[in-house]
């Protein structure tokens, strides 16, 4: 019990435990299948948001093109699912049975070579991580080795997002164009559209997200995490301490891309389609907003940010169909103006100190009550009262206050 308590008191552990309970117990208990599937969809965006925490929050590298990696992961998954949905029997009315319907509509008569490997589930799952990572490596290696950074890098990522969207739409016969890949049905014969499958997929998605949050926490506490913060503050000092700064940025960018790709794959699985509308500039910026609202320094905060922003989007658009875009804008502007470090920053600066203060007070009062119970006829003397007051005034700042500060800077 004692060891469990000390384990929970480690910075970060308790917040991850609470997040796990919320995602794995509370949500499935209070929401029906439709809402749970919706939350599963929000969680796929949270993958991108936690990638942005590593890249932007810790590493100080802003990418406005994370939709690219989300989309690539999603497309890799969708290509496998589409091939499985296009078996010769289902597609026998096509002029070329056995190829995806959009190819048939575009007068393509054979499955292109680069589609062939996506018949294999193993290959597709590897591609979900590898394709975004490889593209991220090429883009970021070329940029960071040349010391391109800051706004210029952000603009380049936007260009990549625009190029990829145009490419996907332009190559309609190979990608499904604007409509994307629809009618995704089964994975290895297992129907992903049933209620039961949707619940299983929700748990898989939430579980994977939690795993990434744990890995992210490990990275944050490693020297790599410290170096990311150091680079953000004094890049030259890190460079002249013998580190190849550009490779650390490349690594952070690839990591964020890989995580986003996994999110995209879960999106394709849970929502049942993938389209260029999740790749372009606008969705990419929306993904950055998730991290900004949740708190760009906090992995757990980013997950809540993804949930809150997307839930508000759904609620606003259901209740105020005419006004919802304005309400969303107000939410973004309000949060980023009032709390630059997002909801997690708000929690660190206001809720946590309040909670610590309160629990210290409660502790005092409880101890005092116990004392009184033991000697019921003895009224508290003036000194004792004073002692209680002064003890309450001492700021309750634990030994881990430095760690807290470091993570909140």
């Amino acid at each position, binding site marked *: 019990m004692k060891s469990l308590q000390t384990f929970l008191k480690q910075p970060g552990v308790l917040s991850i435990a609470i997040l796990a309970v919320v995602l794995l117990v509370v949500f499935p208990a209070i929401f029906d299948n439709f809402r749970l599937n919706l939350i599963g969809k929000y969680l796929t965006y949270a993958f991108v948001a936690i990638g942005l925490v590593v890249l932007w929050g810790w590493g100080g590298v802003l990418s406005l093109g994370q939709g690219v990696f989300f989309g690539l992961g999603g497309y890799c998954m969708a290509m496998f699912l589409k091939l499985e949905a296009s078996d010769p029997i289902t597609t026998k009315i096509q002029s070329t049975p056995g190829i995806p319907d959009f190819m048939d509509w575009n007068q393509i008569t054979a499955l292109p070579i680069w589609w062939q490997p996506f018949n294999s589930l193993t290959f597709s799952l590897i591609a979900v991580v590898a394709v975004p990572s490889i593209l991220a490596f090429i883009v970021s290696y070329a940029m960071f080795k040349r010391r391109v950074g800051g706004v210029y890098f952000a603009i380049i990522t936007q260009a990549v997002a625009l190029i990829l969207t145009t490419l996907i739409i332009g190559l309609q016969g190979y990608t499904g164009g604007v409509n994307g890949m629809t009618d995704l049905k089964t994975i290895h014969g297992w129907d992903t559209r049933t209620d039961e499958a949707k619940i299983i997929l929700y748990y898989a998605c939430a579980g994977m997200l939690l795993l990434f949050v744990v890995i992210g926490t490990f*990275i944050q506490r*490693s*020297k*790599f995490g*410290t*170096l990311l*913060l*150091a680079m953000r*503050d*004094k890049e*030259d*000092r*890190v*460079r*002249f*301490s*013998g*580190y*190849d*700064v550009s*490779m*650390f940025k490349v*690594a952070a960018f690839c990591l964020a891309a890989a995580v986003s790709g996994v999110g995209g794959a879960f999106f394709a699985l849970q929502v049942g389609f993938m389209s260029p509308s999740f790749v372009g500039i606008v969705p990419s910026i929306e993904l950055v907003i998730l991290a900004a609202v949740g708190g760009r320094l906090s992995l757990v905060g980013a997950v809540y940010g993804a949930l809150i922003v997307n839930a508000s989007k759904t609620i606003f658009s259901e209740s105020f169909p005419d006004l919802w875009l304005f309400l969303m804008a107000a939410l973004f502007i309000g949060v980023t103006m009032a709390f630059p470090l997002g909801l997690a920053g708000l929690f660190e600066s206001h809720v946590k100190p309040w909670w610590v203060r309160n629990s210290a007070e409660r502790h005092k009062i409880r101890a005092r009550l116990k004392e009184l119970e033991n000697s019921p006829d003895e009224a508290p003397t003036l000194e004792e009262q004073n002692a209680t007051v002064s003890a309450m005034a001492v700021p309750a700042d634990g030994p881990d206050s*430095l760690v807290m*500060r*470091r993570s909140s*800077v």
Partner: protein
Amino acid sequence: MSSSTDFVLAVEDLTVSFDGFKAIDNLNLYIDKNELRVIIGPNGAGKTTLLDMICGKTRATSGSIKFKDEEMTTLPEYTRVRRGIGRKFQTPSIYENLSVFQNLEVSFPSGRSVLGAIFFKCTDEVKDRVSAVALEIGLSALLQTEAGLLSHGQKQWLEIGMLLMQEPELLMLDEPIAGMSVRERELTAELLKRICQNRSVIVIEHDMEFVKKIAHKVTVMHQGKILAEGSMDTVQSNPAVIDVYLGH
């Protein structure tokens, strides 16, 4: 092109030009093992640029920089650091948001690759080294303090400490006592004398009293060239030096 040497650092025919302006002009400089060299000169003489070129921040237009008989001009900055060149910047350049301990820990010369950093363990060896260096720079009691809260002088010492963590064979300090109090200057002079025991040190400094205290040999720079070189006394009595720098 240039001869092989026994010097720790041999700079030969070094030139850098910014749009035609030669900040360093055909400069030659040789630093011995365990030498403490001070470079003085008026503002704009090219002192900081010279250090920038040795550590790789600025690329040479022509000429050679040899460190332990190895050509440095084409190597990237981090490789030069790993070979043993340490550089302290003019304004204290430390990680303000990290603790003093973390500042020193991050400077420990292992786990410098991406994977190495992810799986880096703060072993007893690292901790011992951090406490030894902290003792040397007088920050033992402040290891858990956030570095941004240190005084200006302490920040300067911390950056020197971060360099000591790397055990460089050549240490380059750009105005290490700028902005320090009299007492802090004395402590820094003692520190410099101690740390040049088993390495070469190049210091840029304006404070003549301080230079007298620490220098083995003084180099005077002017307009990207070397004006004079020698002991403090020879340099001080050199008419050309008096003319451009020390004043009458």
